[in-house]
């Protein structure tokens, strides 16, 4: 997202990143757990399909906003993600920006009752 205005694709990507970051606020999770929780918490509004979650997770990890760590679970290696301090700060700042954009959008859009059928 840019300082003033926003690129739609960047915005969509940013939203996904924020959703992942917000999901990790409650504690560390595996990739699939993040996807399941977001799906459940949004009443199926946000569903990750075709592995689209992985580039988001790996990008956030590369930027230091989340931290991936490996451990063993019954002989298998699992990777869990947790939110970093930088990620927490980013989440707080970007949440404010998204709210600003959404409220700006809501001001522009008519209420459903005002739209002629």
């Amino acid at each position: 997202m840019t300082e003033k205005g926003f690129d739609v694709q960047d915005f969509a990507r940013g939203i996904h990143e924020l959703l992942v970051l917000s999901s990790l606020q409650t504690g560390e999770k595996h990739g699939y757990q993040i996807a399941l929780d977001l799906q459940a918490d949004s009443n199926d509004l946000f569903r990750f399909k075709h592995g689209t979650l992985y580039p988001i997770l790996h990008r956030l990890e590369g930027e230091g906003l989340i931290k991936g760590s490996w451990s063993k679970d019954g002989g298998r290696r699992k990777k869990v993600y947790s939110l970093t301090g930088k990620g927490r700060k980013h989440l707080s700042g970007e949440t404010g920006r998204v709210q600003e954009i959404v409220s700006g959008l809501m001001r522009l859009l008519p209420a459903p009752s005002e739209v002629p059928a």
Partner: protein
Amino acid sequence: MTARRARAFLSTLRKVERHLGVPVPARVKILRELEFDLEELRGRLEAEGLCPEEARARALEALVPDPGTLTELGELYTPRYRRLTGHLDQDVVRVLERSTLAIMAAGLLAAGALALSRADLFRDPSPFLWAVLALGGISIFLAAGEGFALWVKRDHQLSRGGPRLILALAGVTLGLGLFGALLDAYQLVATTGGAAAFMLPESFESFEWFARQAGLLTASLVLALAGGLAWFVLTQWLTLVSGARLDVLGLDPTATRQQEVR
């Protein structure tokens, strides 16, 4: 049970691996993560009451990257060096890489030669020393090239031929040094008619002779050790990466060359 479950997604992992254009170490980590998530999600969906086939299909649909996602992952893991040089003519880049490595190898060799000359071991060098230094230079160039490809370009499509050649050169370097020293000793004995020269420590010729041999043996030993070390590090790294890849894909580590690191 774990092994049986892991096998359930092996063909999927192999298919994904074929289209995942990221360096092998990152590829292995992505596949391990994917496998665990697939297993866990399938288990969760089965526990929620879905039949095994449906649970499997849903897990695959949610987690297995489609071509667009694989491309995105590939871009994420593009090595920084490739990002910097990707827009340049690759032939020019190749020439620049080789020139830089050759200059580095020559620089290292010159630094070594300088250290030897400061130690006064170059006053009357053995003719074998030049051959030893030349072989050492080639070894350094090869080792730097392999290291550069592995750790800077993140290109793991290396055969074991490179490290083996470095090891062979190290052996030849050491052998040449020893042969040169023995030949010099033989010539000395032949020209002095026995061990007379060794029995005159104050003799200037005797000191010169020892200094010459010390220079030759030091250079050949140090260069051979460096070559051996380079071989060890490169081979260990390749084995580690290759083993991890074969392990995640459920392939036999003792199997054929086609299965080795790509």
